[in-house]
């Protein structure tokens, strides 16, 4: 499991130069190809966990074992940010190829990747546009494409759909599930939206407290494809709500 997935052991994080401990001994793992949602209230440290996994910050204690050796032209993980973080001075295709430099790919291979992932997120004809010319939902798709372009073993998503309108959100959720089914990658999906976590993930982990702990870690008892109104799903969502 830990060989191709991800394992956090006794991971703690304290803000540098401060006594406030966000979490001090977090244990959980994600199997290869597994879709895990990490749920918790705001400020509980979900995004901090994601940043630790992404290598953007170092945990104060404990170890994180990521997927072993990555193949040529890929990265272990890739992040999708809530604020999309498209670089405004790059056209969309150049934004998508941002993570592809330094991976030993030829120009032609990079272009092919960009085309492939833009197509995958339904933005095929938008490569030459500027970020300010597209909507928030479209920007989120391009942010997803940028992450998918590096063919990550684990896709890290930090509340990716919380800034878009409800209709766009449910459409993006369904598209994400379709993409996840097609590609062989694990997903760590951080959200505060219980219904979203229950609808998307195979397994839901709930973070709570200060310092925070995983207070619930359960498989979602409904197979894909799911109905949003499924009563089993809604009962499960209620269990998450109670744990929060």
């Amino acid at each position, binding site marked *: 499991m830990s060989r191709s997935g991800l394992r956090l052991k006794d991971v703690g994080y304290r803000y540098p130069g401060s006594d406030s401990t966000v979490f001090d001994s977090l244990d959980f793992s994600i199997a290869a190809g597994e879709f895990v949602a990490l749920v918790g209230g705001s400020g509980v440290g979900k995004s901090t966990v994601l940043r630790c996994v992404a*290598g*953007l910050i170092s945990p104060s204690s404990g170890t994180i074992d990521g997927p072993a050796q990555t193949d040529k032209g890929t990265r272990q993980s890739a992040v999708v*940010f809530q604020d999309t973080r498209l*670089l405004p*001075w*790059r056209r969309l295709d150049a934004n998508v190829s941002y993570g592809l430099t330094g991976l030993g790919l030829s120009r032609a291979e990079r272009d092919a990747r960009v085309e492939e992932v833009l197509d995958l997120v339904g933005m095929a004809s938008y490569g030459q546009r500027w970020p300010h010319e597209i909507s928030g939902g479209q920007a989120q798709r391009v942010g997803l494409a940028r992450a998918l372009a590096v063919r990550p073993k684990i896709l890290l998503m930090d509340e990716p759909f919380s800034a878009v309108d409800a209709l766009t959100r449910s459409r993006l959720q369904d598209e994400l599930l379709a993409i996840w089914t097609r590609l062989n990658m694990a997903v760590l999906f951080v959200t505060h939206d219980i219904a979203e976590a229950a609808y998307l993930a195979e397994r839901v982990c709930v973070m709570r407290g200060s310092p925070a702990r995983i207070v619930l870690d359960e498989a979602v008892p409904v197979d894909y494809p799911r109905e949003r109104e499924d009563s089993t799903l809604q009962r499960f969502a209620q269990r998450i709500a109670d744990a929060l």
Partner: protein
Amino acid sequence: MAATHGTSAAPAQDRQLSRGLARTRRIVLGLSGVALFIVLWKLAYVFNWAPRGTIPDPFAVPAALWAEYNGGRLLPAIGSSLIHYVWGLGVGTALGFAVGLLAASARWFDDIHYMLARILRPIPPLAWVVFAIAWFQVSHAGAAFVISIGVFWVNYFATASGVRDVDPRYYELARAFGHGGFIKRVTSITLPGAAPSILSGIRTGVGQAWMTLIAAELLGVPGMGQEMNSAAGVGAYDAVVVYMLAISLIYTLSDGLFALVENRALRWRP
């Protein structure tokens, strides 16, 4: 708007027409302003509003232009001034950019120089003329040196504040996507992110350099400033006006040229 909803083409045409009219009106008024100024100038000349002989006849300016050109003074003066301008602007911009970038990206450098910068900054470029003469004698280098000082500060502040204002979230993105190294971070985030501020600093410098140019040349280096000075010495104020207008024209051209470059580089902006 609601009343004309049925015919969508007509209002669009109307709007275009009224915008065209507004532009024409603006141009006509602008030209009238210039004409009015020339009339006032002529009146001042005729009725001696200033000490006799110090206001040239506006209608004599074209002839003075011709005389300066024919006498072989105008073009060499412009050429010489351009040498000071290009060198002063180039050196001041390059150094201002480099030091500003360093100040905003290296903490130790910021700490070690901020007080010094605060002391030197308020000294007007022209105050350095004394040292320019002492160090470079009366030479092209001296004039370029004085020009470069003003340009340096403009670019130093524009670059430093532009770099400091780059959204730190972009640096996190760079690290997440394999651009965490210094060179990659600077080229993919810092410079494009600070480009609007850096370019507007350069553009301000393009103007600022002209402002100090003439004064720097008054120290006796060949150029438009010196020609103005010697023309004024023999009471040829119409020739002075010729050089003033030449400065205005060249500035407009260089600023327009740089605006094209700037717009091209920043076409990603909404």
